[in-house]
Each structure stands twice: as C-alpha cells, then as structure tokens.
C-alpha cells in the first residue's frame, strides 16, 4: 500500500471513530441521572408545571431516539445546538472562550513541545550527570506539588508580595485583561493581555516543559541502549550524528503521537489553572456546563474535542508515514 492508500485508510477509520464518539457522547450524557429542569429546583417561584414547560421548550421531553435524530441532522448542518444556560448558540459560547484557551494553552503547548523535546534530549544525552540529576529532582519536586497550589503560590508572590515588598514589577491575580483595556488602543491592550498571561502561562509551561522533557528523556535513554546505536557508533559516526540522525528521530515518534493526541485536549482547557487564575477559557466553561447540565453545550464541546483529537491523531499518523517508512509499508 502506498502513502495515499495509507492516508485514505486512516481517514476512513478516523471517521468511523468520530461517529462512534459522538454517539457515545450523546447517549452517555442522556442516560446519567438528573434533569436540567432542576436548575430551577430550589426556586419556590417555579412550580412543576412551569418546569414542564421549560422541558418542552428545550425539547427535552421528546423520546431519546428522536432527540438523537434531531442531534445528527443539526450536526450535519453545522448546528451544534443552543445553550439554554447561556441562551446563545453553542458555537458562539465556545467561540467566546476558545481564543483565550488557545492563547494560553496554545502558547504553552508550543513552548512545552519545543523546549521540552530539546531539553529532554539534552539531559538524556548527559544521563547520570549533575544536570540530569538536577532535572530529575526538579521534575519530581514540581510534580509532587498540585498545580493549583503552585498557581496560588505564584499569585501570592508575584501579584501581592511583589507589590508589598516594592519589587519593580507585579502581575495580575486574575482575569485575561483589565476591564476597559480594549478602549486603550491596540498596543496597550495587547500588552495588558500579555501581562495577564504571564502567571498562568508560567505555571503551565514549567509543568509542561518538565513533562515533555521527562517523556523525551525516557524515550531517548531507551533508544540509546539499542543495538543499532552501537552499530552506528561502531561505524565511526560522531556523537552528534548518532544523536540526531539515529537516536533523536526514533525517540521523537511517540512524542509526535502525544502531540497529536494533545491537540484535542487544548480545547478542553486546563480547568485548574483557568480556575485559579480566573482565566476565561473553555475548561471553566465546560466544567460549569457539566455541573449545570447544559446538554447541548457539553455535547458541542465534546464533539469538537473528540473531532480535534481524532484529527490530531490522524495528522500524527500521517506524519508517521512520512518520517518512518516502516509504518506505511507494514
């Protein structure tokens, strides 16, 4: 099978997986206990009759198969539904928070992947050195502390004590921008957004870089013990050639898979960090939709997440096909 056949096969399976994923998402969420009418449950002004009216208005009293049919038809038309919590189309609700999530997690993702891969390779190459030991200790220490705690520590230190102690800089404790900063003009607004980004991005990126480096380090250390590395060295190749041409390219294959899988996760957001820093991303939005039973919004977000995860995996497998000829010919 050539590369085209390989790609076509992967696309076909990705589509099947997508249909299964959206079906599972739909039915799973509809069979769990609970009822969205209970949003009004503690309100003594809403009686059962009014609650029934709300169910009818939202179509939630239709049989499940009928709701599923409506769901598929709308999906084909690009309609993800209407969020009854936000009283807005689902795509619009996701569209409000997505740019902020992409800014925070996208930036963090790129920094994590690029710095993490090279840092991992760097310390793996120096396995057993003081640098490597320091890296392992740092990784374990940082991972032992919950991320939200690190976030709180950063807020206390760089938002409050920095001002109290008269440091020349400080960063905001919450939010993605100052209220009204959009009226200051493009550049000051941009600076304000970046200023708000510093703390959450730093917390996320430190964790991310260490995680990716750890992954890359493990892969590379394994590969450096392989026979073909010894063969390469026996052939007289210099250490840089051994590292980059033979070890690095093989070690990066699982990392590419991970990158592909992580694309969908970007949309899911980083709930903890978004919550600690009150960042207006999709993670917080999705969490609230889940606990408030906003069915259409949860479905819409999951559809996008599963779609993007599958797309990321598909792209990773296609990239595999290019960088590893064994895969497309197997």
């Amino acid at each position, binding site marked *: 099978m050539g590369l085209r056949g390989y790609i076509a096969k992967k696309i076909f399976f990705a589509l099947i997986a997508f249909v299964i994923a959206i079906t599972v998402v739909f039915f799973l969420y509809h069979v769990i*206990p*609970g*009822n969205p*009418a*209970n*949003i*009004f*449950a*503690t*309100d*003594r*002004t809403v*009686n*059962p009759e*009014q*609650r029934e*009216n709300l169910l009818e*208005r939202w179509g939630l009293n239709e049989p499940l198969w009928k709701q599923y049919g409506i769901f598929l038809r709308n999906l084909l038309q690009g309609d993800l539904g209407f969020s009854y*919590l*936000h*009283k*807005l189309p689902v795509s619009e609700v996701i569209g*409000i*928070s997505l740019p902020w999530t992409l800014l925070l997690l996208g930036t963090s993702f790129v920094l994590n992947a690029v710095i993490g891969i090279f840092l991992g390779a760097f310390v793996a190459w120096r396995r057993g050195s003081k640098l490597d030991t320091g890296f392992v200790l740092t990784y374990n220490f940082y991972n032992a502390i919950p991320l939200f705690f690190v976030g*709180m520590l950063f*807020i*206390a230190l760089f*938002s*409050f004590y920095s*001002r*109290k102690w008269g440091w020349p*800089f*400080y960063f*905001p*404790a*919450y*939010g*993605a*921008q*100052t*209220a*009204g*900063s*959009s009226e*200051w003009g493009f*550049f*000051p607004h941009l*600076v*304000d957004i970046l*200023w708000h980004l510093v703390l959450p991005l730093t917390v996320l990126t430190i964790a991310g870089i260490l995680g990716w480096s750890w992954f890359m380090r493990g892969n590379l250390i394994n590969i450096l013990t392989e026979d073909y590395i010894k063969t390469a060295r026996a052939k007289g190749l210099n250490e840089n050639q051994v590292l980059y041409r033979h070890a690095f390219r093989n070690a990066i294959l699982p990392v590419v898979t991970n990158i592909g899988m992580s694309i969908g996760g970007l949309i899911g957001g980083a709930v903890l960090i978004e*919550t*600690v*820093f*009150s960042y*207006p991303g999709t993670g*917080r*939005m999705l969490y*609230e939709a889940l*606990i408030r*039973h906003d069915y259409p919004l949860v479905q819409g977000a999951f559809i996008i997440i599963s779609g993007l995860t599958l797309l990321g995996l598909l792209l990773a497998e296609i990239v595999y096909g290019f960088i590893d000829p064994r895969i497309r010919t197997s």
Partner: protein
Amino acid sequence: MLVLMGMSPSLMVMGQEPIYGGIMHTPLSADAHALNPFSWTTTYEAYVIWHIYDPLVRLDLENQAYACIAESWSHSTDFSEWTFVIRDDVYWHDGEKLTIDDVFYTYNLNWNDPDIPRRSWLFDEITELEVVDNTIVITFGWGPKPADVLYDLATTLIVPEHIWADIDLHDYANDVNPIGSGPFKFVEWERAQFFRLEKHDQYQFPIYIDGKTIPIISEVEAAFYALAGGDIEVMANPPPELESAAEFYNASVHTSLNDYWVYLGMNQRRYPNNVTEFRQAIMYGIDRQEIVDVIKYGRGAIMPASCNLPWGTYYNEEAKTYDYNITKTIEMLDDLGWVDTDEDDIREDGLGNPLEFDVIVSADAQESVDTVKFIKTYLEPAGIQVNVVPIIWDVLWTTVGGTGDEANTWDYDWAVLGWVGFWSDFHPSSFYWLLSADNWWGSNAVNIPGWNSTVRTQVTDLCELVLYETDEAVVADLIDQIQVLVAEDLPYLPLQVNGGTYLYKTDEYKGWQLGPTDGPDNYFTWLSIQLISPPESGPGYLALGAILALVITVGLIKFRRRRD
C-alpha cells in the same frame, strides 16, 4: 384608603463635601449567563441585574420597604387594594422618561403570563390592575399582608415598555445592551471575565462613584490577594485563616446572616421517623452550636426549632429550643423502650428494626456532608447508626420529591436540605410556604413528606388564618401558636442559618453601609460610597506598557545591530 405609608429616601451622607469619581471593584465568583430580569437563575445574574434595574421599592438594611421608583404607597383597610405613586424624576438609561405606563406594562405582563420564572406568586391573586394619573392601583381578591406586597410583589423589577414590547421575554437574553432605570448603566460584558457599569447620571438619587467593575474571580484565595493588593474593594467569605489578617491589609470585617437555613429532613413516610418523640430525641442529640462553630467557622447561627429566625417581629421565645443534651436523647429513647437487645451497639425500634439511617446529602455541598458526619458522631453514643450518603444534587432533589415526579421518590431515610428565598421573620406568609398542606412547597409531597399528624392540620389552619388576617396583633398571636406547635412536633429539624463574612477595604473608599442581613456591597453602599481622597489620573498599566515597549524596541535595535 386609610393608611399612607409614603417614605422619603434618606441616604446616609457623610456630612462633608462629597468626592466624586473612582471605580468600585466588587467581584463575583462565577459569571452570569443572561441579564433577563424576568428569568434570571443564579445569584450572579441577579447581582448584576439589580444594578441595572429598579423595582418600585427596595428593602433597606433593616429589611424594611424603601421607596425607589415609587414615591409613596397606600392600601385599603383590608389590604385588598394597593396604590403606588411613582416619582416624576426617573429616567431610563437611554434617556427616555420612566412613566406609569412602564410600570403598568411590567405588572400587566407578569399578571398575564404565569410562565414567567421570576414572577411573584401574588400576581395570581390580582383581580384588577388600573392606572390613575401617575399611580397604579392593584386590587387583590383578598388582602395580602403589607410584608408580602412590599417585599414580594413590589420588588418586581420594572422594565421599559419601549424596549420589551416587541420581544419574547422568555427567549431574550438581554445581554447586549440592557436598558434599565437602576443606579448603574450597562457598559460592557466580557463573558467569564468582567462587567463594566457606569453611574446613571439621571438617577433619582446622587451617586458619587463613576462606576463599578465586576470582575469574575473564581478562586477565593486569588480574590483575597486581589483585595489585599488593592485590585478589588470587597469580597465575601474569605478563607478563615486569612480573615484574621484583614486589618493588616487595611480591610474591615463584616458578618451578616444569609437568607438560607439548613435542616435535617426526616422522611415521615417511614417508621420510626413519624414518631414525634423520636424526632425530638434526635434534635436533643445534635450539637448545633458546634456545627456552626466548627463547620461554618462561626459564620451563622443556630436555627430555632420553631422554623422562625430569632430576630424581628414574630419570633416566639416560648417555643421549645432543644439545647444539646445527649443524655436527654438516651433517656427519651429508653422511655420509648427502644434499647439494644442484640448487643451490637445499635438500638432497635418498636418493630425490632435497628436504628440505622442513611442520610442523603448533596455531594457538592461539603459543609452539608461534614454536618452529616458530625450528626453521625453525635448520635453514635445514643445507639443510633447514621450512614453518610453523598449524592448528586439532582438525584437528591428527585428523591425528596422536589421535582413532583413520584417515580423513585421518597426512597430515603433522612436528608440534609435548605430553605432559601425569604426572611421568615419579616414575612408572615412564609409559614404558609413552609408548613401548610395546601401549597406544593409545604405539602406532603416535598420537604416534609409524611407529616400527617393532627398538629399538621392545626398548623395548616393557622397558616390560612395568618394569610387572610388583617389585624397585626392577631397575626402575631397566630404565628406564636404556629411556632409552639412546630417546635414541639418538629416537621423539620432545623440545624443552622448560614452566615456570611465580608472583607471591605477602608483605605480608599468611605461610606460603606452595613446591615445585619447584608454584606457591605449593597444598594445603599452604591449610593453613599465615595473616595477618601480625589482620584489619581491615568492607569499604571499604560506606564508599564510603555516601559515594556521601550525595552522590547531597544532590544530589537541592539539585536539587529549585532547581527549586522
């Protein structure tokens, strides 16, 4: 018309030349979803909406009616006819004048549409609505109490007819440019980030600050550091360990009681929950003060067994109080003959079943879960086994009959729930809602399923009498009787009324208004708060932005020079 109750606004002004300016920052812990005054669902939405819209009357810091859009009001001797005179100096945020037609439009809309979620139950009792000059005359089929009319009906938010006349209010999010007549105009809403409001220049009362920013700060510690750093001026319920340091950050502490009380609900459809002496024994065995002190960090108070808050007009001190006494619990169970016959440390009831009870509680409400754990510990020495069963709220609510759906309902022993929505001590009709078998909330279906004793019939009759009685002394006497009966029979086992603790900054603003049931961020504070010293010009961020821009530019120039 015999009684004229006109009230003139009396704002608490400081007695000095006011300082105008400044933006007040008051955070919310979660975002609103729509700003529809007819259908808001969360306190976050209500908070923003009540900045933008005004009712005919608001409640003051002592929970008494305060003239807002209405200038005065009066009623007939039997309370069946109410007349509200509106002020002549009220304007909408778009500059249009608020007229009596707007008031009629809003009330008429509520009167004719029973599906409006935020509709007072009193609209169902209206028989006629009429406009006479600048007054609206409301006629009821009977005479509801002044407290009910003024606190429930007259707090309906008034909307402009010229905006709402052509829209479906049920589907309208009203989030782009809501126009009200309240003290603050809507400027901007960045979802999940902040609201910006500016003062309504034509407001009928003076406002000193330029506006308010309402940031969404989801993490309480972050809010505390924002307060300590001067980014916000007030916050609710700070972490207890940080509260003590408030003074250090130029903040003051204010505590108040919230409109929410928690009770242990026993499913009286099941034996032995329907045995009054058993319920009394349990009530003696719960150390409610410790629950308030430990679980609530002292924020709140014991809720009296009479289901009536211990302050205000109607509280009856003669009603039974059930001070913690585990010895009494043991004695009462012994008197019932319910002893541990099989020596497993659990007593058996009159039918020989062990006194073992599952207590369902909302898994989301950690304080309620902790409360049940405490109850478990309290009752263990008395030979009662309590099992803590945290479940999701929706399932809990369905189980206790809250949805009105009988399937899978009432399959529980005990539950921890709460009542929210009114101050029962100021509101005589609240006993009707709580206890009367004739309305859904107090009925046999929900909250107190299975309460079918003769006392219930007596209480229901008394509630009906309260509802229609016009003599205030008689009302007070009837409510006294209800409290004694309820405290004796215990349909609910009230635990505690929740309290709130607030931190507010005192180094930048003065004029905070504080009340026993209000936080510092209330309507009267909005009208009286002002800067201590004149505002400084220019935000610091611009300076920071300029410095950053300069550093980046210099860096780039150096980099290019080196590369060249």
